[in-house]
């Protein structure tokens, strides 16, 4: 047994539940008398809904297939060899479940080395090798093809990426080293760093070809046939593949610098993966592949044993899996159909909701408001947005006509809501106003209609309390911008029944939102945590820490924006309002900052001015601030803020606001954009020891979003 085989056998024993990919070898004659060819098909035996992955046994299977093909090449019975995938899927990379199980640095190293040892054989097989990217290719799937002599890609390929950095890894089976040597460092940085950190952006087949990753592109209808005909021509010397010269001078350095700039702007140095990848790309400039592969092995092993990757995989699973099966949602068979939607209010938020319901549900949507002008403005907004979609080619004229025909506005709620199944209010955030609105709606709406509120902090139970049928009231809390942030907090009031809740979850699914069930607790999940977080920062500023120190203290987390920039986005007035609400509920933990109140009172929309291009403290705001004389260090600020967050989450879980810490993290990722490398936040609090310090225990068991014990 070769050392590679031994290495992989050891790894396979650590991962008994691997979904194993088989590497089938099939032989046939190429057209034009080009000779006998061996084609390896990667196939895990399932259809395209379970994409092909590489675990250790899968790599061992590929290794065995390559043994056979290599022997045939040596014997002269084949003139070339290829590799492709099952229908619609090429291969989507390493099996993350196997990565999660790894406990020891040397085992992690073995996975990296095992992959390299198998894949790199394709670059020195004795005959030319060809990768045919027929369908989705990601991570190790992309990399196995990079080791081949030539590549073709299907123009129908929907997704191609190196998502490792997005998860917290580096493309470590040759990606960091081979790709820049193939297409140049700048393009490699685009694929490995920029796309990955841009929400894991996928390339299409045409882009794969234009970037120079593939040497030829063919249409999906007869992709493999045309690829093999092309192969025959290449092998006969009728087609000579020419690739652009790679800039190994300043261009390479500039590309790496650009990559670092992108990484800084996205993760602010808080997650190591992008930087490790860039180090390898930088070193690959000399074209020494084996040195690069060794560096990839080390980086992979280090990152696999680090908390950021474990958090990244945990976060990935939350948004891919838990988001699709909301914890605590009632059986979906209880849900009632929703064939018409009412929206109370025609302001901006209400109009955005109307547009969302319209586009996703494609049922009549009726807006109401207190005067015709507001109604007209709301409907006009929706029409305008439909026209924008039409202009961008996102919808066609027929669809635009249909959507416009479905939206209407009326003054009379009785006229608008008499046959509505789902009515959502987005009126002024004041309990008495909302209660009055719901009472009016109940008087005219069908008995079965769901009454939903988009309140961000008011009690859903109290809002329902004066109704004849409080069981049909649910909280339906969206996040701004509604069209972009996936989170929807679905709030169960004290009297909400299962059918209403099931209907709400059914609607959420059709809206393509990530629904999380929360108890009717003050400010629910995201706003409560963000307010506590912001409140603690505000406290240290009020007590005397300079604004700059307070902001810098949070930078190591790598949040998408600094706390005060976030406050500006939310609006200081709304921030103040939520803090007042929470202060009433929990006066011992939530404060109302007099400085924030002063800023709001002065009508300022934020703390910063951007005259120099960078955020600088607005001198007018600075003049308003009344600070104490307690100046904390960055570390002290960070400890205080994180302790507060850990305490609040601990209390929320004790109160049963959500089912598990996982739901808190899912909310923070999808509602506040908190990063994967923090895993939301609880994995970070666990690994930094904050949970233990504050609550005396971890949020997540060892092995969940962390290296198993």
């Amino acid at each position, binding site marked *: 047994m070769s050392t590679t085989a031994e290495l992989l056998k050891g790894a396979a024993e650590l991962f008994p539940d691997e979904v194993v990919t088989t590497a089938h*070898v*099939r032989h*046939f004659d190429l057209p034009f008398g080009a000779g006998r060819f061996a084609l390896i*098909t990667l*196939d895990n035996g399932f259809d395209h809904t379970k994409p092909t992955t590489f675990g250790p046994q899968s790599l061992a299977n590929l290794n065995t297939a390559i043994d056979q093909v290599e022997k045939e090449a040596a014997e002269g019975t084949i003139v070339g060899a290829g590799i492709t995938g*099952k229908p619609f899927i090429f291969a989507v990379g390493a099996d993350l479940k196997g990565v999660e199980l790894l406990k020891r640095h040397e085992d992690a190293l073995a996975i990296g080395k095992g992959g390299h040892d198998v894949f790199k054989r394709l670059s020195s097989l004795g005959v030319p090798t060809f990768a045919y990217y027929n369908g989705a290719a990601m991570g190790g799937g992309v990399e196995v093809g990079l080791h081949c002599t030539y590549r073709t890609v299907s123009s129908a390929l929907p997704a191609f990426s190196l998502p490792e950095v997005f998860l917290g890894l580096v493309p470590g089976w040759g990606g960091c080293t081979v790709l820049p040597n193939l297409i140049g460092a700048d393009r490699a940085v685009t694929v490995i760093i920029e796309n990955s950190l841009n929400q894991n952006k996928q390339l299409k087949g045409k882009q794969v070809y234009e970037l120079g990753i593939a040497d030829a592109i063919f249409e999906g*209808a007869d992709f493999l*046939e045309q690829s*093999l005909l092309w192969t025959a021509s290449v092998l006969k010397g009728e087609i000579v593949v020419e690739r652009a010269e790679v800039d190994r001078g300043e261009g390479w350095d500039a590309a790496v610098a650009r990559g670092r700039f992108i990484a800084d702007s996205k993760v602010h140095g808080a997650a190591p993966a992008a930087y490790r990848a860039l180090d390898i790309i930088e070193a690959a400039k000399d074209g020494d592949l084996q040195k690069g592969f060794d560096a990839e092995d080390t980086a992979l092993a280090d990152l696999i044993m680090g908390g950021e990757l474990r958090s990244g995989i945990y976060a990935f699973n939350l948004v891919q899996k838990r988001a699709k099966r909301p914890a605590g949602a009632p059986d979906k068979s209880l849900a009632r159909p929703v064939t018409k939607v009412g929206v109370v209010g025609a302001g901006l938020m209400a109009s955005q909701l109307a547009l969302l319901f319209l586009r996703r549900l494609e049922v009549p949507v009726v807006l109401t408001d207190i005067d015709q002008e507001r109604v007209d403005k709301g409907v006009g907004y929706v029409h305008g947005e439909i026209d924008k979609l039409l202009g961008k080619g996102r919808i066609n004229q027929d669809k635009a006509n249909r959507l416009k025909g479905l939206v209407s506005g009326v003054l009379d709620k009785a006229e608008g809501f008499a046959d509505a199944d789902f009515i959502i209010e987005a009126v002024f955030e004041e309990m008495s106003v909302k209660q009055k609105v719901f009472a009016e709606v109940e008087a005219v709406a069908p008995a079965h209609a769901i009454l939903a509120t988009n309140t961000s902090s008011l009690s859903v139970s109290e809002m329902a309390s004066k109704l004849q049928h409080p069981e049909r009231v649910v909280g339906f809390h969206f996040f701004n911008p509604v069209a972009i942030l996936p989170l929807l907090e679905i709030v169960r009031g004290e009297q909400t029944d299962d059918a209403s809740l099931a209907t709400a979850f059914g609607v959420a699914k059709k809206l393509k939102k990530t629904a999380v069930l929360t108890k009717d607790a003050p400010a629910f999940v995201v706003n409560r945590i963000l307010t506590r977080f912001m409140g603690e920062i505000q406290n240290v500023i009020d007590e005397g820490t300079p604004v700059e120190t307070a902001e810098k203290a949070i930078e190591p987390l790598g949040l998408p924006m600094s706390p005060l920039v976030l406050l500006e986005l939310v609006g200081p007035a709304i921030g103040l309002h939520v803090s007042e609400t929470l202060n009433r509920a929990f006066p011992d933990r939530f404060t109302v900052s007099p400085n924030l109140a002063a800023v709001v009172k002065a009508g300022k929309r934020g703390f910063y001015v951007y005259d120099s291009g960078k955020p600088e403290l607005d001198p007018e705001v600075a003049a308003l601030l009344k600070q104490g004389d307690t100046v904390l260090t960055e570390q002290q600020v960070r400890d205080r803020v994180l302790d507060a967050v850990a305490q609040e989450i601990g209390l929320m879980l004790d109160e049963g606001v959500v089912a598990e810490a996982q739901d808190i993290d899912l909310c923070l990722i999808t509602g506040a954009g908190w990063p994967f490398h923090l895993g939301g936040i609880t994995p970070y609090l666990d690994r930094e020891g904050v949970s233990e310090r504050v609550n005396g225990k971890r949020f997540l068991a060892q092995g969940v979003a962390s290296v198993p014990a």
Partner: protein
Amino acid sequence: MPRTVRDVVFVDGVRTPFGKAGPKGIYHETRADDLVVKAIRELLRRNPGLDPAQIDEVAIAATTQIGDQGLTIGRTAGILAGLPQSVPGYSIDRMCAGALTAVTSVAGSIAFGAYDAVIAGGVEHMGRHPMGEGVDPNPRFVSEKLVDESALFMGMTAENLHDRYPHITKQRADEYAVRSQEKAAKAYANGKIQADLVPVSVRRTNPEAGETGWGLVTADEPMRPGTTLESLANLKTPFRVHGNVTAGNAAGLNDGATASIIASEDFARENGLPVKMRLVSYAFAGVEPEVMGYGPIPATEKALAKAGLSIEDINLFEINEAFAVQVLAFLDHYGIADDDARVNQYGGAIAFGHPLASSGVRLMTQLARQFEEQPEVRYGLTTMCVGFGMGATVIWENPHWEGK
């Protein structure tokens, strides 16, 4: 409005290699619609002078029009092949003569002036759609003795034809079959067949059928080069005890697709498209369903009469070899020797296979190659027998004919 009948030409034809139907066949895991799509795309690649937007129709034949051969396959195949949405399509059925009828139907429309250029072809995946799948013959056929029960089983109709012509013995049929295999092997060796085949990628997941994974099919699977009289002598006669028809002297059960471009001659010349054959006449005829193999004879009589030609004018024959006996009955009728060099020069369906509704265009594609090679020949014909007692014949003129 005054009209002029226009000349109709066969521009080009291609086909997939033919496969053996069944779980071990090369196309067992390949869809029928994909087969015809690949043929259409190859045709377009070979004829860049034809702007796809100028195609007026896609006529695709299939006998069993359900599943992947249903849903108006002429339309769906056009969309799947990437033709513009503006190009319409339809399905057509005359069992074995499906593709031939697709060609004659669109040819009539071209002559009339309704179309300029058309794609016509056929497909039959007899593995996915065995003969007789989903049929529901009216009980009156039997109760009123409209046809004999044997009429529904093509092998039995072939045995019936042996009864009608006792001088066509099993020995003659087997000798004919051996020659068909020999001629096909020779045509392959000379590269006559491959030039009009489109390679097809095929997936296999069943290890009992051979190596698994993706493969590429570049040759006909049913061929049995080296077939001898001895090897045929002891084959079973599945349609009748002590009968004459065997798997060796008949076409098998096969999968495959064909496609051709049919156009008005003016359009072809204006667009720089090849003119491989010129349509002279065509005819269909009905015969007793129990001896459907007789069909080509009256069909050919009619087609010759319409063209004002006699059988002596025809110097190349492409006869579909559903059964050797049916070819021999035709040859006997016209006094042509069993081994006449003008007949099926590249071999026939006994060697290549006969995926029912696709075969007509295979005959044309092969005749077109022979025309090109033999400019001394002016006229040729393609003919085939059809289930339920029919025959179909198309007479073609060689545009390469050197005259006199």
